[in-house]
């Protein structure tokens, strides 16, 4: 009864609140990425992309961004040219 009343007043059930809070907390706890690791990720991205296109190795950037309830890895790469027949590799 109390629950229904609370919900009518626009209160979310506490289980849902807990879930949302945990999504956020765990994401933060898990982001234990060292600069070394980010550098390794960057080098791997360069390696993979280089199979298909010529890229500017110096311009590549890899960053983690925290959204409201998501985390994103954002990478900006300048492409110089795409190899022909790249799709057949």
């Amino acid at each position, binding site marked *: 009864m109390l*629950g229904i009343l609370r919900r009518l007043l626009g209160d979310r*059930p*506490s*289980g*849902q609140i*807990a*879930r949302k*809070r*945990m*999504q956020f*907390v*765990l994401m933060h*706890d*898990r982001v*234990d990425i060292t600069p070394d690791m980010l550098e390794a990720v960057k080098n791997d991205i360069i390696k993979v992309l280089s199979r298909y296109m010529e890229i500017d190795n110096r311009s590549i950037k890899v960053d983690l961004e925290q959204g409201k309830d998501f985390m994103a890895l954002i990478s900006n790469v300048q492409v110089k040219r795409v190899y022909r027949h790249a799709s057949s590799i």
Partner: protein
Amino acid sequence: MAGKTIVVTSGKGGVGKTTTVANLGTTLAKKKYSVVMIDTDIGLRNLDVVMGLENRIVYNLVDIIEGKCRKEQAMIRDRKIPNLFMIPAAQTREKNSITPEQMKELCSTLAAEFDYVMIDCPAGIEQGFKNAIAGAETALVVTTPEVSAIRDADRVIGLLEAAMLKHISLIINRLNAKMVKKGDMMSTEDIISLLSVPLLGVVPESDEVVVSTNRGVPLVHDRSSKAGAAFRRMAARLNGEENLPLDGDGSHGFFGRMKRLIWN
């Protein structure tokens, strides 16, 4: 013959590690597998009282490691099941009286003789935790549907993955189906999606657990106990008996009861 080495861990204290070890160990032993349970919580041992074996202790884990006794001398046989043994932790020693390497060696020796080696891990993520997981191939992470337990479970899962354990699965303890229905408790699905590890089973919240620890007789001996039934199903799943329905939220109502009748 190489048995399975399984560590039961959680990060947070008081979520039911020891109860889980006692009940899974007892169930597997009842199925005629040879089982040895090791309490690695040095200084704060409890598996002995949960199993009702506290007044039979002579030697302990540290004595085996330090060579003060043969391992057979420290293994206490269960009162009811002859193929179930327990190695108690030392009560008056420090966590660093043993090393991960020594635990690894002991676990592999025991795995050569037993079908199941169940390791009861202390709370925390320090030395005691490192000792407990060193000799294990499989980890069961116990959590309750509370934010603090889930957060700690997530930390522990990260550490287990870093330690390259082969199998990690989740046990949700003390789920209150009524509260989940009302929306006032995170559901099994919520917890799985947060922790992203496969689920071994769900234990409903139950007063029977306190009664069974009061008596020093594991719940699974009681055929009518719902929580005991949950542990029995988990043991079956652990034993590779696949396709058993998962319990918890789904086991209510007519069909749930039918399923329970069939599977138990």
